[in-house]
């Protein structure tokens, strides 16, 4: 059996990475990626990897071909996961930004301690010449907010309603 060169492997895997992302809607996406990997590897034995990959066309167009043959639209779970992760990440980032801004303001005012209660969670900001810290508690309201943001963005990002659309 001929062994693929490193360059051929990189070309193949770069293509398959883009294809696997584009074809994620397909219920058998992993099997498709496996099939395409086998076909392109076998074809490369005859015409070379670059020509074999070129014959497949753009990975997104190839994925659209498979999805079109499916005859229905399907949810994009991975995209939904990314959206939800980014949304929750943005929420955490805003929390950190608010805390740093509060500490900075306290220092500008000469230092001290500030206590604030938001959505049931009490947070204590301390900014002195010796201590810089934030202490907070967890409340069910914050958990509900986080879960809500995650759920809404996941549902919207993944087009989850497609799971119930007629085949």
């Amino acid at each position, binding site marked *: 059996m001929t062994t693929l060169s490193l360059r051929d492997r990189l070309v193949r895997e770069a293509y398959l990475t883009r294809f696997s992302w584009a074809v994620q809607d397909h219920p058998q996406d992993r099997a498709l990626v496996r099939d395409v990997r086998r*076909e392109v590897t*076998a074809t490369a034995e005859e015409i070379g990897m670059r020509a074999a990959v070129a*014959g497949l066309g753009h990975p997104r167009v190839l994925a659209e071909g*498979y999805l079109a043959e499916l005859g229905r639209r399907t949810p994009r779970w991975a995209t939904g996961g990314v959206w939800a992760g980014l949304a929750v990440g943005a929420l955490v980032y805003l929390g950190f930004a608010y805390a740093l801004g509060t500490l900075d303001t306290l220092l500008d005012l000469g230092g001290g301690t500030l206590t604030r209660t938001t959505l049931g969670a009490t947070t204590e900001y301390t900014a002195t010449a010796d201590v810089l810290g934030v202490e907070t508690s967890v409340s069910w309201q914050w958990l509900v907010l986080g879960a809500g943001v995650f759920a809404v963005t996941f549902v919207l990002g993944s087009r989850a309603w497609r799971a119930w659309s007629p085949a």
Partner: protein
Amino acid sequence: MDDDRDPQLLKGVLPMLVLATLGRGESYGYELVTRLQDAGLTDLAAGTLYPVLNRLEREGRVSSRLVASSAGPARKYYVPTEAGTAELARAQRSWQRLAGTVARVLDAGTPTDPGAAPAPTDDPSRRTR
């Protein structure tokens, strides 16, 4: 020779052509592409064919088997199933009916005698009021 081919036309008949080609001998993906290209579908790409093969296999119209190759990785060979052969016969009948209808319509619209089908004119004296 005019090689312009409407991709939508090809899309409609490609499953039938795949079944017909596989009916003459099992084949793996790239070989099937080259067989169809040799038959005249010169602009057919592997990326167009593979999704069709996948659908035919999912619908049970072709079956596949992996054959180890001494020269490279295993190849997936496809062959029509009984359902695929029946589908090919049905598709052929349907295509022949459609082709006949299309030919009749086109023939009826093509003037064979220039005198029998006058061309439209802008001559105001020939306009009806």
